[in-house]
């Protein structure tokens, strides 16, 4: 009685089993249609996974936090979720699913972009999109400031970092970020 059930369970969670296939398709869909920031990703995963009981909301909150404090793409949250649902194979499948569309899109867009840059109408369009993109990044900056600047310590770190970066253009920003982490840690001890 137990044996077939255990077998079935093992089968469902195997590499090409239904659990992984549904993980793959969910993340493929998100990777292919999601615009914008991590906040949108949260809302998306909330309705896609938490609402269907695939993961708990706490797991989602922790996954997003991990994506944000690890280096590299924020979408690595998805690796974390895949692992919680179905171990290493779930993590691998989910990661492939979420990033695959990006590779395809850029491969398609790149030759197109070169051709269209010589088209006057498209150039007008792209120039405006570029300005809009810069505006979006500025707003991200404002939101970061609103969330993190509180008290003289954080202001000091932001101002000193900015002075260094604007004065010495060759400074690697990774040093600034690590420096910020260390100085912040020390200032918290004071």
């Amino acid at each position: 009685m137990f044996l077939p059930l255990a077998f079935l369970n093992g089968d469902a969670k195997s590499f090409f089993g239904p659990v992984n296939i549904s993980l793959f398709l969910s993340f493929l869909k998100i990777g292919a249609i999601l615009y914008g920031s991590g906040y949108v990703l949260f809302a998306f995963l909330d309705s896609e996974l938490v609402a269907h009981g695939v993961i708990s909301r706490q797991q989602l909150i922790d996954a997003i936090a991990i994506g944000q404090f690890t280096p590299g793409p924020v979408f690595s949250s998805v690796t974390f979720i895949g692992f919680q649902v179905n171990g290493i194979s779930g993590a691998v499948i989910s990661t492939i699913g979420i990033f695959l569309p990006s590779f395809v899109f850029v491969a398609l867009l790149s030759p197109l972009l070169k051709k269209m840059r010589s088209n006057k109408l498209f150039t007008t369009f792209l120039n405006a999109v570029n300005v809009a993109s810069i505006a979006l990044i500025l707003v991200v900056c404002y939101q970061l400031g609103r969330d993190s600047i509180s008290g003289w310590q954080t202001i000091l770190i932001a101002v000193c970092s900015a002075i260094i970066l604007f004065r010495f253009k060759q400074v690697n920003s990774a040093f600034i970020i690590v420096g910020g982490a260390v100085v912040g840690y020390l200032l918290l001890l004071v």
Partner: protein
Amino acid sequence: MHNTPGSLTPKDHKSNLKDIARLFLKLGITAFGGPAAHIAMMRHEVVVKRQWLSEQHFLDLIGATNLIPGPNSTEMAIHIGQERGGWRGLLIAGFCFIMPAVIITGCLAWLYRSYGQLPQVQPFVYGIKPAIIAVILAAIYPLAKKSIQSVELGIIGIVCLVLCFLGYSEVVILFGAGFAALGWAWLLSA
């Protein structure tokens, strides 16, 4: 072997691919702070330090990757790889940028399943965020100067900024800006 000056020999091509791998592995490990910070760091590496792309070309890639769905900074990495090393560069850049985050996240996911909670990182993140703001601002300033090529584009930029603060979605703002510029050009010519 006979090569005209300026054309890439297979050897050059190979060293190009190695450079791409090295750069994006480095960014994958050191790029903290979300897409806007990643783009700031990529600009420093690709435009300032290595001069693989001009400021305008980099700006165009930002605009173009914003127009397609998916994670912007990962798509920037893939795009830069493609510009520099063809389809091999495309795959290598994307893979190298994503991999470190995925491995770190995978390890954290495994720890999380064993211990049920995340490591305490708050004291370290405290100083990182203000530093990231400075990094983004330092990169965005020259890009903003480059992108605002006319009074019209300046006005579009301000309107985008306001709409973004009012909470309009990114897709609406990006495409809206593009079509507004087209409409403007059409009105002027009519």
